C-alpha cells in the first residue's frame, strides 16, 4: 500500500501530498470487514436489512438488534464497528429530537442524512478524534399527509397548513448512505459491508423506479432484500448469520408511516424463498458443469 511508511497515515485530518486522508480510508477498511447491510427504496416504502454474523454460539438468538429506530418514521442500519454505530444512532436521535423541538415536526429523511453527514465529516477534521468506522444507511418515509404540528390541539385551518402547491406530490420514501468521510448520496438501492459488491450487482438488477407497473412493491422488496443478503453471504458460507430486516411504508401501507421490524412470518417466508433461490441457482450451475463435463 502506498500509504504505509509515508508518515501521512499516522494521524487523522492529515493530507498526503496527493490530497488523501489515509485515516479515513483505513476507517473504510473497518467497514469492509463488517457484515453486509443493504437498503432498498421502492415505490411504496423502504426496506433495510443486515447480515449479522454470529460470532459466538452463546449469543442470545434474535436479541441483539442492529437496525435502530431514530424517529418514528426513520430507521438506520450500518456496517462496521458496532459501538461506533451505536454512537451514530445516539447522535441521530438527538438530531431528530432537536429538530422536533425547533420545528414541531418530524425531521425529513434528507435533513437527517445531511446533519449526520456533517457530523461524520467533523470527525475527519481533527487530529484529536478518529473517523467513524461505519457506513450508515438511513431509510425513512416523509409523511405525504397534511400533518399538523406536534402538540396541536384543535382542527387547525380547514385549508391545511399551506405552503404546498396543489397537484404536487409531497413526502414519500427516501434512502441515503453515509460514509466515514461524511460523504452521502441518495440511493434507490444501497449496500455496504463485506458483501457489498455482490449485493450491489443484485440491486442493480431490480426495477426501483418511483412509478411504473413493473417496479418493485414493498413486499417484493422485503423478499429481494432477504435474497440479496443471502447472496452476499454466499462467499462467507462457513459462518452462520442472522437476518434482521425492517421496513417503512406510507400511511396507507402496512407500517402506516412508521419504521418497524418486518413481521416474523414475512421475514421467515422471505428467508425460505431466499434459500430456495440459492439452491436453484446451485443446481443450475451444477447442471452446466455436468454439461461441460459431458462435452
Amino acid at each position, binding site marked *: 500500500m502506498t500509504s504505509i511508511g509515508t508518515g501521512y497515515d499516522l494521524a487523522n485530518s492529515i493530507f498526503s501530498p496527493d490530497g488523501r486522508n489515509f485515516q479515513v480510508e483505513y476507517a473504510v477498511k473497518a467497514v469492509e470487514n463488517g457484515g453486509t447491510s443493504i437498503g432498498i427504496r421502492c415505490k411504496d416504502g423502504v426496506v433495510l436489512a443486515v447480515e449479522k454474523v454470529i460470532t459466538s454460539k452463546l449469543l442470545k438468538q434474535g*436479541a441483539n*438488534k442492529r437496525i*435502530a*429506530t431514530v*424517529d*418514528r418514521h426513520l430507521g438506520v442500519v450500518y456496517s462496521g464497528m458496532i459501538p461506533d454505530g451505536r454512537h451514530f444512532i445516539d447522535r441521530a*436521535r438527538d438530531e*431528530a*429530537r432537536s429538530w*422536533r*423541538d425547533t420545528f*414541531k415536526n418530524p425531521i425529513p429523511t434528507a435533513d437527517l442524512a445531511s446533519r449526520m453527514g456533517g457530523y461524520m465529516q467533523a470527525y475527519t477534521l481533527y487530529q484529536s478524534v478518529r473517523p467513524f468506522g461505519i457506513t450508515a444507511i438511513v431509510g425513512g418515509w416523509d409523511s405525504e399527509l397534511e400533518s399538523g404540528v*406536534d*402538540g*396541536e*390541539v*384543535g*382542527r387547525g385551518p380547514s385549508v391545511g397548513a399551506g405552503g404546498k402547491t396543489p397537484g404536487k406530490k409531497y413526502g414519500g420514501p427516501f434512502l441515503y448512505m453515509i460514509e466515514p468521510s461524511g460523504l452521502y448520496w441518495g440511493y434507490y438501492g444501497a449496500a455496504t459491508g463485506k458483501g457489498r459488491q455482490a449485493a450491489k450487482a443484485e440491486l442493480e438488477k431490480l426495477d426501483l423506479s418511483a412509478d411504473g407497473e413493473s417496479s418493485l412493491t414493498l413486499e417484493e422488496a422485503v423478499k429481494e432484500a432477504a435474497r440479496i443478503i443471502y447472496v452476499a453471504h454466499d462467499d462467507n458460507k462457513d459462518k452462520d448469520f442472522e437476518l434482521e430486516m425492517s421496513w417503512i411504508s406510507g400511511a396507507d401501507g402496512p407500517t402506516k408511516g412508521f419504521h*418497524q*421490524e418486518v413481521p416474523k412470518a414475512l421475514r421467515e417466508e422471505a428467508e425460505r424463498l431466499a434459500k430456495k433461490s440459492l439452491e436453484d441457482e446451485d443446481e443450475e450451475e451444477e447442471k452446466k458443469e455436468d454439461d461441460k463435463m459431458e462435452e
Partner: protein
Amino acid sequence: MDHRPQAWGRPRDDVYGAYDGSYLQSGGPKTATQSPVVTGTSVVAIKYKDGVVIAADNLASYGSLARFTDVKRLRVFLGTSVVGFGGDVSDMQWLDRHLNELAIDESYDDEPSPSSLLSASPNKGHGKLNAANLHVYLQKLMYRRRNDFDPLWNQLLIAGLDAAGKPHLSSVDLRGTAFTSPSLATGFGAALAQPIMRRHAPTEEAAAALTREEAVGVVQECMKVLYYRDARSLDRYSIAVVTKEGVELKEDEQLERQSWAFAERIKGYGTQTV
C-alpha cells in the same frame, strides 16, 4: 478629558451626564407564569372492573370567553395510557410534545418479547412505561418546575394500567402534589363531579365492581352536571376508555338528553329583574 480606555467612544460625562445603565437591569425579581391564560376546565375519571373511563370537554377558554371549541384535552401515551389536562392549554401543548418525545424514546428498543414473565399477560405496550410509571414521571416533572418557580399550570389525570395490569388512576397538579383514587376530577369537577362519582365508587372494591357501561354512564352524568353548572364548560367532549386492550378514544361526543328546566327557577343573576 477622560482618556481611560473604558471611556473611549462614550459621550462625555461632564457634558451629557453619567451614563444611565438602568435599562440593562430588569425591574424587580425574575418572573415566570403567574396565572394561566387559555384554560381548559374539568377532567373527570373513574376506575371500573377492567380499566378506567376518563373525559374532558373540548373547550379552551380565554378568561370567560369560550375561545376555542375543538380542543382535545385527552392525550394518548404509547397507545396504553391517557393523560387528561386541566388548566393552561399552552402548557398542556408543551407537555404533550414532551410526552411525545418520551414515547419516541420508548419506541427505540421495540423488542417484542415472547417469554414475558414479570407481567400477568402479554398486553399491549408490555415492558414500556405504564400509567403508574408515567404518574411518577409527571409528578417529578411538575414538582421540579414548581421549585424553579416556573410551574406548568395544569392539573393532570393519568389513566391506564399499572405493572400488575390493574387499573390505575392518578392525579398531579402544578405544585407536584400527587395521589391516586378510585375516582378523580380536576377543577370545578373536584367540587361537582367528585361527589357523584364517589356515590358509585366510594372505595377501590366498589370501583372494581363497576362495569364499563356503569362507569361510562357515571362519567357522562358528571359531564352533564358540569355543563349545567360550570360556565367555562361545553357540551362537546372527549371520552376515553383505557383497558389492557388499549385505548378507545372518542373526541367529538355530544352531551345527550339535556334538560334545562331547572334554569327557570334560578333567580338573581345579571339583568334579571324578577
